[in-house]
């Protein structure tokens, strides 16, 4: 059975309204916390650290009242690739991992396939990292509306404006891009359905019929791009009509202000990350 709900599985970036503590935190605090934890996730290779990180991220997701099943369902389309990569790391990367990461003991060998303690660790740690990163990014984007996310980024980039960085323009571009993702997604679905109704056979060829697939994409992409360009023109006119100036001296309807919980969250994340990084070679 064909399915036309293409964007059902896109979970990252989908704001889920809520009233939790995480929802109420200042976006800058959330961005800082998530960046710190991403650093911890990226630089630690020990099992202990990743167990702690996994527990922490799951705890934060629970605190934000976000459904874990929904978040994890977002990786389903990529699952075959992830598994393939994991298997390759496990069996083929043995030698390199043995020297690069701790653990050169050969656990299993068959011809050129070799599993070492290092490659096993690399595989497990990579999978844990992937899950943790997914949870962290979801924590940020599922519990923060895109507008406050971009205001947060703009405010964090503002110090760099002195160096000539167009903070406001960058954040405006970000806001508009994010704002139009669901719009274009919806449009894509409509076009998909409309062309299917006109007899288009949207099976996208077979798995190996790239040329045919590409040809069929034309049916979808031409109207999509045309509409996106027209929409962009309308947007420009609408902004011009309201004398949108942007840039310096522009105030916001919602003023961002860091409160006690924001400082506490950032301090805790900093302490946790520092501890994990300091102990990253000492822990098993």
């Amino acid at each position, binding site marked *: 059975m064909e399915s036309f709900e293409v964007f*059902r599985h896109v979970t990252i970036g*989908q704001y889920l309204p809520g009233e939790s503590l995480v929802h109420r935190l200042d976006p800058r605090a959330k961005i800082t916390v998530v960046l710190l934890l991403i650093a911890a996730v990226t630089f630690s290779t020990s099992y202990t650290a990743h167990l702690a990180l996994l527990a922490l991220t799951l705890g934060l997701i629970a605190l934000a009242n976000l459904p874990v099943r929904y978040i994890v369902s977002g990786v389903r389309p990529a699952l075959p690739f992830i598994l393939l990569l994991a298997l390759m790391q496990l069996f083929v990367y043995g030698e390199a991992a043995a020297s690069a990461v701790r653990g050169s003991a050969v656990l299993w060998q068959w011809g050129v396939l070799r599993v070492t303690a290092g490659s096993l660790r690399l595989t497990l740690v990579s999978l844990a990292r992937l899950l943790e990163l997914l949870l962290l990014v979801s924590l940020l984007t599922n519990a923060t509306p895109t507008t406050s996310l971009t205001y947060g980024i703009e405010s964090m980039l503002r110090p760099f404006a002195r160096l000539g960085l167009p903070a406001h323009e960058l954040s405006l571009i970000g806001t508009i891009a994010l704002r139009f993702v669901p719009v274009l997604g919806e449009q894509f679905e409509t076009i998909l*359905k409309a062309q299917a109704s006109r007899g288009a056979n949207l099976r996208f060829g077979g798995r190996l019929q790239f040329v045919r697939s590409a040809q069929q994409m034309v*049916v979808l992409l031409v109207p999509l791009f045309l509409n996106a360009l027209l929409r962009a023109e309308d947007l420009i006119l609408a902004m011009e009509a309201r004398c949108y100036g942007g840039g310096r001296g522009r105030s916001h309807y919602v003023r961002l202000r860091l409160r006690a919980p924001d400082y506490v969250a950032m301090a805790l994340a900093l302490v946790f990350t520092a501890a994990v990084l300091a102990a990253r070679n000492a822990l098993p």
Partner: protein
Amino acid sequence: MSEPFIRAKGLQYTYMAGTPLAVEALKGVDLEVWPGEAIGLIGPAGAGKSTLVQHLNGLLRPRARGQLWIDGQDMGDPRVDARPLRRRIGLVFQRPEDQLFKTLVGDDIAFGPRQLGLPREEVRERVRWAMEMVGLDFGAFVDRPVVSLSGGERRRAAIAGTLALRPSTLILDEATSGLDPRGRRQLLDLLRRLHREEGTTVILVTTHMEDLVGLAGRVVVLAGGRTVLEGSLREVYGQADLLRRHGLGVPQMAEVGEALAARGCRLSRVPLTVQEAEEEIAPRLGVSCGVV
């Protein structure tokens, strides 16, 4: 009349089912459409009209509750392939002109027939027929670039693209919205002609009940994802209170009849058109004014 061609019973549909963003669009729709019939589907914005019509050519399928049979096939059965069905049931989307993608008008209209694998001559014949049906002159428009067309011409070209599939059932979702009065009249004339001369089953989705006069034998009113009223055009016209409660406009002539009734002058039937209203009212005034 034999079997209904389309039969929905308690049809339900939820978008993004199983996610926190689930939206219940259909909560229980009953609908029967017989072959060769023309029906109107009306309802306020958000009533589920578009979701319903997307079920009728198999773009959406009943998942959990509710049943839908089309041409004897149970659409809830995942083994049923909806693609052959779409050749017989043409669905024209809202703003169909947004879906044109070829450079030339003729090529775009020919897309459907070409997908069917028809021979060149047949494709050409169908394009000619479809263009004449929608009132685009074949010789003048077939090689025109799509971008050079006006909005109304694009709408007609897009509808021709669906007609070229020669569907036995044609569903139009808000096809008249955004057209000028002449474009609207021409489109409705086309639908009447398709229905009477070609025997096409027509399902017209609209928020303007006036569009249905002289076309739809039966009207189904949808609100809040449910079928709330069904009947002949005149019966539905007569339910002004119910229509208003669901945020629908009441046709002007029905309002005239209602206003007269409120003043103690009950007409023998609910007038659908200005002419009918005149026929009802003129004798009571003791005047005969022929044609208004």
